[in-house]
């Protein structure tokens, strides 16, 4: 069973052979791996989705200022702003992705999906999709299972960690999970779901991880919003059967290849990109602890 989440083509083939849908294969996988009851899986997913919804609402309601001050109630400002650039729905989407991620930056409770740095993307997209299309919780939970399947394959073939693959691995993977989940929730086919994943990865490839002062705040929070927007644009494209041309498995390979050749200064070390700008360095001096004892060499602990 575990061969299943080595590739998208393997996942699809398994579903064809057994005449089941993508999310059912994920349930089978989880049961086989962890010996869980199916109901426990649904319960766990519902609990996770509830934490996601709470994060969106908390971020739009409560005071959200990080200790560095870089995050300061941005989601609420976007939510309340009188001008909607595209539509009120788009405004809500962006503010919700920001909100859940701000909760993460401000020591609130979130679901790391797939990681803490990308924890605003699934909440922002799925909350908004559910509201617009009046979807059942069950449908969203199926979407989460598909998102999990997508992440399992990316983890296997590339990486989900900013420190290993750059930000494409974190916010890129979350956007791919969201796009696949959304297409499923809107009744898309397997090919459309995989196309949405492929298109999303194509849009997020190469993104480096360069958090200012090493804190998961700037640019992480705004990237959760842009990744949510990209997930929506990819879903829109994929639902219309527009092909990604490069198959999804090969897109993930490309992500892995790019991640592997990325210099380490772009992998969460806060040595490159935005972190290395003049302002980034100033902020870093201000927020990081400077009063550090340095041990004389011979005095190192045993």
């Amino acid at each position, binding site marked *: 069973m575990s061969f299943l989440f080595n590739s998208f083509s393997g996942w699809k083939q398994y579903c064809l052979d057994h005449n089941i849908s993508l999310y059912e294969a994920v349930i089978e996988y989880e049961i086989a791996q962890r010996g869980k009851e199916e109901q426990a899986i649904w319960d766990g997913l519902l609990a996770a989705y509830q934490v996601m919804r709470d994060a969106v609402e908390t971020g739009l309601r409560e005071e959200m200022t990080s200790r560095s001050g870089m995050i300061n109630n941005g989601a609420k400002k976007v939510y309340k702003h009188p001008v909607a650039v595209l539509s009120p729905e788009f405004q809500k989407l962006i503010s919700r992705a920001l909100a859940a991620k701000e909760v993460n*930056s401000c*020591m609130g409770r*979130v679901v790391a999906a797939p990681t*803490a740095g990308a924890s605003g993307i699934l909440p922002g997209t799925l909350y908004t999709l559910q509201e617009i299309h009046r979807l059942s919780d069950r449908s969203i939970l199926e979407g989460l299972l598909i998102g999990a399947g997508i992440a*399992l394959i990316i983890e296997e073939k590339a990486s989900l960690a900013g420190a290993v693959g750059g930000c494409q691995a974190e916010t890129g993977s979350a956007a791919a999970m969201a796009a696949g989940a959304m297409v499923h929730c809107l009744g898309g086919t397997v090919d459309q779901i995989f196309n949405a994943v492929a298109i999303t990865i194509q849009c997020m490839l190469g993104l480096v991880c360069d958090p200012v002062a*090493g*804190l998961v*705040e700037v640019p992480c929070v705004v990237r959760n919003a842009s990744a949510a927007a990209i997930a929506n644009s990819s879903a829109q494209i994929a639902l219309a059967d527009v092909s990604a041309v490069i198959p999804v498995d090969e897109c993930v390979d490309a992500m892995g290849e790019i991640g592997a050749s990325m210099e380490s200064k772009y992998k969460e070390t806060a040595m490159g990109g935005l972190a290395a700008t003049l302002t980034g360095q100033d902020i870093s001096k201000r927020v990081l602890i400077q009063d550090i004892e340095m041990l004389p060499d011979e005095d190192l602990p045993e």
Partner: protein
Amino acid sequence: MSGKSSVFDMIGPVMIGPSSSHTAGVVRIARAAIRVLGAKPDKAELTFYNSFARTYEGHGSDKAIIGGLMDFKTDDPKIKQAFEIAKEQGLEYKFKSVGNASVYHPNTIKLNISKGEQKVEVIGESLGGGLINIAFVDGFNADFTAQSHTLIIKAQDISGAIAFISSVIAQEKANIATMSVSRKGKNDEACHVIEMDSGIQAITIEYLRSIPWIKQIIYIPDIDL
């Protein structure tokens, strides 16, 4: 990590932000440490090393460790108010930063914690994704992950000790995942650290405690429960 990931590694874990290595991992180190102490401490001195030395405050690892010392779980929203709650509970604490302890893992914390006369020094590492390693306990090499059930036995360094201890645990049908022994000083003391897949009964621990050459037993069941 061994084996394949779970759906709930992808959609999860539920955690307190901002990052699993700076929050969840740190909370778990503290939860392991108070179990080594055998009590919630009333005094704590926390030293953050290397990469943690500069970033612990910005990432809220200071609140995470205080929360963990009060036995908060990794997903407890009260972690954000850990300082206020510590004040109410009478936990005194002090933080220190040491920048260049190259012998330690980049994200290392030393905890000197005490409750009345009881005290212990624990050195823990946050490995990412909330995983931890407890590297040292009172100067002994410990190296356990606290992911399952752990038994720490300080004993005289006599021959046959390892075989004896493993046979007692085998009676419980608990699977030993890892077992290590480290020795320190001239007083012939050995520290056995045993990680087991399942828990063992209090009566077994009492039996071990009654063995004359065994000096101290610390039993740490699953720290996430």
